[in-house]
């Protein structure tokens, strides 16, 4: 039972990172992006490839490379699409997610194709071994990341950069005519969100000891969006609450072994239903957006 609670705690932490990244992109900056799963995949595969290579890198270097790869791909997709107005990003990010998955499936030389990469070794943090077999240590490890990133995001929200992102979300035309380089801000926000998701991918890969392309499909991106919308766009704590609800709904039956009884497609129906019901009855989400406290 303890083990199950720890397991849910770990998944909660990993999904929370994805939700926090999505909240920065969608909640704070107002960009509808549908490819958190792809950024997560990039982080996961980067981790897998590095750790299974002949000379695996130490944890600190791994983190740097994962963050770099995440933001690099964030920039790659962000630069061409974020200059455009409207919902081009949603379409482009959707396509990007599919491309990443297909590349992972077919570039078997690097990614192992549909079989993925297995036997990913554990990592060492100082003298502590971070391994999936010691769940309590891994839980603390995961939530350490969540804590640091949450702190960083709060700081960002209170900074001028955060204020600029909010202005862009509120009215991009006005923001640009007041001298804000909106494309730059949007791309940077997008890169940060992507990097956070890549970190989630890293944690996922180390915990599972293997990665396969199927883990990172479109439904995962939708699930993450669902978490953020459920909690309340633009509110980081709400994103955590939303994540908790969704993780419990979607993981619990599986972890308790009921998954044989409940068809896998139920999740998809459920997420769709949650989004629709929220949009009708509570578009601001369960917790809503916090009133700005920046000036006080």
């Amino acid at each position, binding site marked *: 039972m303890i083990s199950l609670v720890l397991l849910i705690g770990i998944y909660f932490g990993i999904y929370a990172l994805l939700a926090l990244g999505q909240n920065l992109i969608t909640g704070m900056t107002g960009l509808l992006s549908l490819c958190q799963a792809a950024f997560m995949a990039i982080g996961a595969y980067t981790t897998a490839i590095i750790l299974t290579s002949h000379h695996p890198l130490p944890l600190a270097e791994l983190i740097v490379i994962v963050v770099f790869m995440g933001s690099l791909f964030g920039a790659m997709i962000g630069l061409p699409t974020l200059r455009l107005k409207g919902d081009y990003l949603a379409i482009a990010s959707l396509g990007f997610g599919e491309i990443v998955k297909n590349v992972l499936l077919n570039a078997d030389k690097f990614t192992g194709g549909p079989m993925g990469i297995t036997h990913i070794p554990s990592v060492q943090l100082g003298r502590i071994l971070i391994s999936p077999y010691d769940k309590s240590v891994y839980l603390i490890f995961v939530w350490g990341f969540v804590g640091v990133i949450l702190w960083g995001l709060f700081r960002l929200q209170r900074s001028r950069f955060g204020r600029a992102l909010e202005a862009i979300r509120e009215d991009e035309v006005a923001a640009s005519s*007041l001298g804000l380089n909106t494309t730059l801000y949007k791309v940077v926000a997008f890169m940060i969100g992507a990097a956070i998701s890549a970190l989630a991918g890293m944690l996922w890969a180390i915990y599972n000891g293997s990665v396969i392309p199927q883990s990172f499909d479109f439904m995962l991106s939708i699930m993450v969006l669902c978490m953020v919308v459920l909690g309340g766009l633009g509110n980081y704590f709400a994103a955590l609450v939303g994540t908790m609800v969704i993780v419990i709904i979607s993981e619990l039956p599986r972890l308790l072994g009921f998954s044989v009884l409940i068809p896998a497609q139920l999740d998809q129906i459920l997420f769709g239903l949650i989004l629709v019901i929220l949009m009708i009855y509570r578009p601001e989400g369960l917790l809503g957006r916090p009133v700005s406290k920046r000036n006080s």
Partner: protein
Amino acid sequence: MTTLLSTQGLSRSFGGIVAVNDLNLQINKGIITGLIGPNGAGKTTSFNCITGLDSPTGGRVFFNDRDITGFSPPRINRLGIARTFQNLRLFRDMTVFENVMVARHHTSSFSTLLSLLRINDEEKKIQIAAGHWLERLGLWTHRDERAQDLPYGLQKRLELARAMATEPTLLFLDEPAAGLNRTETEQLMTTLRDFRDEGLSIVIIEHDMHLIMNVCEQITVLNFGQMIGQGTPKQVRTNPLVIEAYLGKDDHATR
């Protein structure tokens, strides 16, 4: 009088509709210029083409003798051109103070990114400058209210404060008096005259003829995307082409 901004053959067409047609505007330094004309004459479209929100299909825009055609809105703003919008474009969910503070970000785009990494005194400077403009336009006591909670008249004033906070040398106002009552309009006129006396050049689109005739030194009249008259309020009022545009063709039409 020196020319601050001019357009040469500025044109903008949407498909077959020519909204602005071969327009040669001249905006002089240090005065208030009125841009009037019937609805659909191309006034706002010209504003948009000049401030970079729209790209002209032909012609060029010069600011201080520099060709600024096709510059992005932030770049144009940094050169010293600010504007307000016909339909308010406030950051509705942000406070009054924040709305104006955003307008000070341009002073330090790069340091705004750096603000993530460290605390610097830039923020203090921004608050002081924003506070100055709020006080100036009588919004200081409302600074912590959400922009959308302000009454309409104050929202319009907030948009003006926000534009002024970017410290422009040339200010474009798109119907600043629309929706204001008589007292508010008089207040606005006083404010605009003050700004002008401090050296700001202003261009106003407005249908309120009382305002136009009383604060503008120079008026340009557009119809069907073309300039049909230009001059002092008195000259414009007696220009037969202008009268025709507003009142229709009639030999006996006088004002």
